């Protein structure tokens, strides 16, 4: 009987020893292996290339010296993965704002208003609930500023059988900047990230 307990103890100790320990990713200097799916390093790389291209193009430079008002339009996720496109756009929006050349608007966007409180405050103003607020603290009509430029785009995935055991996955990040008054496209960029690996490695 004692032997069974010792054997059980040894098996339990072995199983515990096989467990992969949890570690924090060193995001500043991640030497981890690439993965077939899109990870944060791919988004960082794509966003950096996009921002550099956009700034270099001069498309955000307003002729009269002011700042453009920019909104994020529709970003389509045409991959097999569940991606929140904000993972890409949050970095780009942040850098556009930090560049000092443009301001982002939360009033309108491809997914509706980025901040739903903008609409909610106006609904309150136009309803009986407005009686609960001091009228001068409610937003007046005609105060919102319409965007002049819109960024829209797409993330595309293509899976290609490379050989019997290897699969090639291509991810295309495509963005464009459009003047909402004229409809003219001021800037466009495509960034490709390609991966090749075991067919069994899931890329969705």
């Amino acid at each position, binding site marked *: 009987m004692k032997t069974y307990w010792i054997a059980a103890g040894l098996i339990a100790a072995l199983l515990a020893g096989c467990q992969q320990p949890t570690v924090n990713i060193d995001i500043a200097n991640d030497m981890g292996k690439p993965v077939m799916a899109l990870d944060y390093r791919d988004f960082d*790389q794509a*966003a950096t*290339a996009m921002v*550099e291209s956009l*700034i270099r193009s001069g498309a955000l430079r307003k002729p009269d010296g002011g700042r453009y008002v920019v909104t994020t339009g529709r970003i389509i996720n045409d991959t097999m993965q569940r991606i929140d496109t904000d993972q890409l756009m949050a970095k780009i929006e942040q*850098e556009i704002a930090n560049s000092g050349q443009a301001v982002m608007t939360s009033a309108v966007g491809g997914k509706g208003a980025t901040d739903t409180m903008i609409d909610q405050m106006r609904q309150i103003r136009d309803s009986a609930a407005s009686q609960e607020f001091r009228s001068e603290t409610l937003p007046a009509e005609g105060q919102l500023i319409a965007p002049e430029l819109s960024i829209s785009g797409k993330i595309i995935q293509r899976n290609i059988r490379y050989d019997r055991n290897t699969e090639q996955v291509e991810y295309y990040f495509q963005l464009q900047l459009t003047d909402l008054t004229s409809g003219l496209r001021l800037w466009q960029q495509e960034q490709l990230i390609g991966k090749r690996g075991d067919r069994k490695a899931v890329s969705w």
Partner: protein
Amino acid sequence: MKTYGMIALLLVGLTVFGCAQHTHDPRVTLADTVGSDTPGSNIITRPVGQIFSAVIGEGIVIQNVSQRVTPAGFLEVQVQGLNQSHSIRRFDYQVVWLDAGGMVIPTKTSVWQPVSVQPKSPFAIRAISPSPAAVDFRINTRTQPN
């Protein structure tokens, strides 16, 4: 002893020859197997050159760093270099931007970016600052994780 010395000298000579095969416009680089053979790059002597290159540890050298300010006020940097080795060199670089006070400008664009350079070929890295406040920069490199 003399024979070994002569052979060694010959090998070094062939390797050096192989490194300086610019008989055409120096702005155009032809890879070993693309251009015509030279004493240092033909199918027999090429392995010698490759071994010698590996032994002396040839790699990336930086030849020129230039910068300019764009009309919109952003600092733009170009680093030109050469891969001296006989193999493709892959590495990552990261640009850190500094303001007039020498403080690092926080940006999402200071991430590791991959570069791949053909053997014996020049390359260029370009980067543009995320803010007009940048007046200086630092570039770090590392080997690529694999």
